[in-house]
């Protein structure tokens, strides 16, 4: 049993290291992908897209675009249903998704 457990832990250690490397590689890839200027030009959704994910008859949908590091604070619902946005690096834009 001891030998089997030692072998298992050694295999698991190798597997975990492999996963760490793959996670790091994929994180860098995703960052490069989203920061590429050509991709940024085509990285948008339309109002129709937004309406396709929410039923506009039942739901009101607000879209918030904020600069990096904007703080979003949600209060304790026992006190109030409250959302606070605070930016330090530029204006925040909030849009209401039109029904049609």
């Amino acid at each position, binding site marked *: 049993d001891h030998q089997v457990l030692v072998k*298992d832990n050694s295999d698991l250690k190798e597997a975990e290291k492999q996963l760490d490397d793959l996670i790091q590689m994929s994180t860098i890839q*995703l960052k490069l992908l989203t920061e590429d200027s050509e991709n940024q030009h085509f990285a948008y959704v339309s109002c129709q897209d937004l309406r396709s994910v929410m039923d506009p008859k039942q739901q009101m949908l607000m879209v*918030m675009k904020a600069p990096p590091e904007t703080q979003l604070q949600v209060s304790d619902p026992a006190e109030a*249903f*409250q959302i606070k*946005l605070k*930016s330090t690096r530029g204006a925040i834009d909030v849009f209401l998704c039109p029904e049609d």
Partner: protein
Amino acid sequence: AQECQNLEMEKQRRMERIKQKRAQLQELLLQQIAFKNLVQRNQQNEQQNQGAPALNSTIKLPFIIVNTSKRTVIDCSISSDKFEYLFNFDNAFEIHDDIEVLKRMGMSFGLESGKCSPEDLRLAKSLVPKALEGYITDMSTGSSWVNQGLLCNSA
């Protein structure tokens, strides 16, 4: 016996960590697929329509959405420089980020729910590095971590 017990506990801890890291890697791959799929779709649309859609009809990533019932009354205060907003709702609301919207738009081919057609699986695999295709296959079949052994087939 004591040492075997310690090794067994270390093995369980490691397996739990591997399970979490595998889920993290699959989420990263989903985001990569959804983003690339969105970019490709918009490129094709712009080619077909000979130009970009009207600026006020699109929202660029990154963004977040807040949705609530239409009956909700929202009291909104905005600072003059638009650096601060305060929203008070009289009803519950939900907050989602852009990747969640892309998933609901189908940009990740339904991989997150393990429902992916063979054609979509082929498309999804074409959007990630070859070495990681095995993870996409595992996601498409919704296969759990255990019955795949320690890692997916290819890796």
